[in-house]
């Protein structure tokens, strides 16, 4: 538990000092919003609103891929990853610390991106704050768990950015699909649709538990 907090504190403090990760993720996802504007056919605002939930989650996922790679590039700089591996503690706690730090970062980026979607496409992002927060939280949790596990893998391969995308995208289809579904229903009706939320919860449980258990094997050399 102590180790979890130590790793979380270290990651967030490093990020706060340099802010390079969160800034580049933010810029990237805002750029995606702008690109989408030009990619969408000109039409009634309702059409853009219908597409907004899916686009929001695609933008989040891509921005997360960027940030997750940096999360471990930072650990490789002075072989600090070995420093973590040296600690006489269960590696699962180290995973939880890093995964929660990534979760915080992804949520921050996503909240700003959602705001941009609200402004640019008139998506009703402020209409149901509690429900929207729940959907954002559940979706980002799945991305950060699998992303932290395979971020640690990808960063020690050749073509690390490419590898992370190839590894993560097929695994995260359920999260992306369920989160988009839940967001769409929420925007259209104001209700929380239980089916996609259930799937998000199951996917989160699967990814958090399996990553917690398997992290030991990716941390060793």
């Amino acid at each position, binding site marked *: 538990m102590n180790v979890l907090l130590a790793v979380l504190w270290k990651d967030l403090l490093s990020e706060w000092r340099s802010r390079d990760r969160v800034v580049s993720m933010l810029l990237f996802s805002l750029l995606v919003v702008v690109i989408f504007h030009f990619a969408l056919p000109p039409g009634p605002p309702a059409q853009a609103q219908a597409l907004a939930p899916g686009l929001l989650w695609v933008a989040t996922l891509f921005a997360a891929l960027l940030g997750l790679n940096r999360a471990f590039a930072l650990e490789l700089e002075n072989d600090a990853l070995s420093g973590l591996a040296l600690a006489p503690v269960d590696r699962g706690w180290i995973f939880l610390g890093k995964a929660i730090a990534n979760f915080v970062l992804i949520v921050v980026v996503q909240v700003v991106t959602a705001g941009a979607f609200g402004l640019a496409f008139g998506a009703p992002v402020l209409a149901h704050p509690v429900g929207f927060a729940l959907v954002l939280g559940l979706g980002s949790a799945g991305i950060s768990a699998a992303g932290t596990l395979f971020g640690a893998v990808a960063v020690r391969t050749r073509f690390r950015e490419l590898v992370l995308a190839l590894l993560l995208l097929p695994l995260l289809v359920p999260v992306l699909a369920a989160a988009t579904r839940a967001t769409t229903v929420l925007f259209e009706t104001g209700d929380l649709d239980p089916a996609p939320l259930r799937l998000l919860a199951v996917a989160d449980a*699967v990814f958090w538990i399996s990553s917690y258990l398997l992290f030991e094997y990716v941390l060793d050399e």
Partner: protein
Amino acid sequence: MLALAVALTGAVWALLVVMAPMDAMQGPIQKILYVHVPTAFAAYAAFATTAVAGAFYLWREDEAFDRLALSAAEVGVVLCTLVLVTGPIWAKGTWGRWWSWDPRLTVTLLLWFIYLAYILLRSFTEGSERTARFAAVYGIVGLLAVPLNYLAIDLFGGRAIHPENLSRGSLGEGMGAPFAAGIVAALVAFAYLTCLRFQLEGLRALAARRASLGPP
């Protein structure tokens, strides 16, 4: 031994497929299903083998399990490619279009992506121990993602058009035998190919070790 079994079961399968009654509505194109369904079974078996062998590798740290995982994954990708090729050919003839985002189709496609990524991950990682461990972890999580993918595609439900005759037990008369023979033959073929690949990988490891020792 296995090679003989492959030849034998393959021959029985081919014979039964030829003898199976012609589908009144679909015509001869229906027979492609006798290839499609059994290869799908074998492909799923291959990916399950990869994940289980990966888990055993992490547990026992025996390189043989890693070689088995790799062999099964490669054979699985080939089988899965066959499934993804035969399916659309049949679908074009019967449903009138090559591709539909039917749940089973989509899950199989994602599975194909996952295990191609598995093979790519191996080739992009340096150090055999690290490669084996990274791959095992990905193979395990990849298999866990399969039921999640099913659930996800169910969310967009109502578009499932895959025939369910096998699970409903409502196959037409004379269709059961070729399907059963096909499944047995495909599984035997999978086992045989995986064994060959496994032996090759073992020899390769041996050769690399000998080479690293230099001339005697």
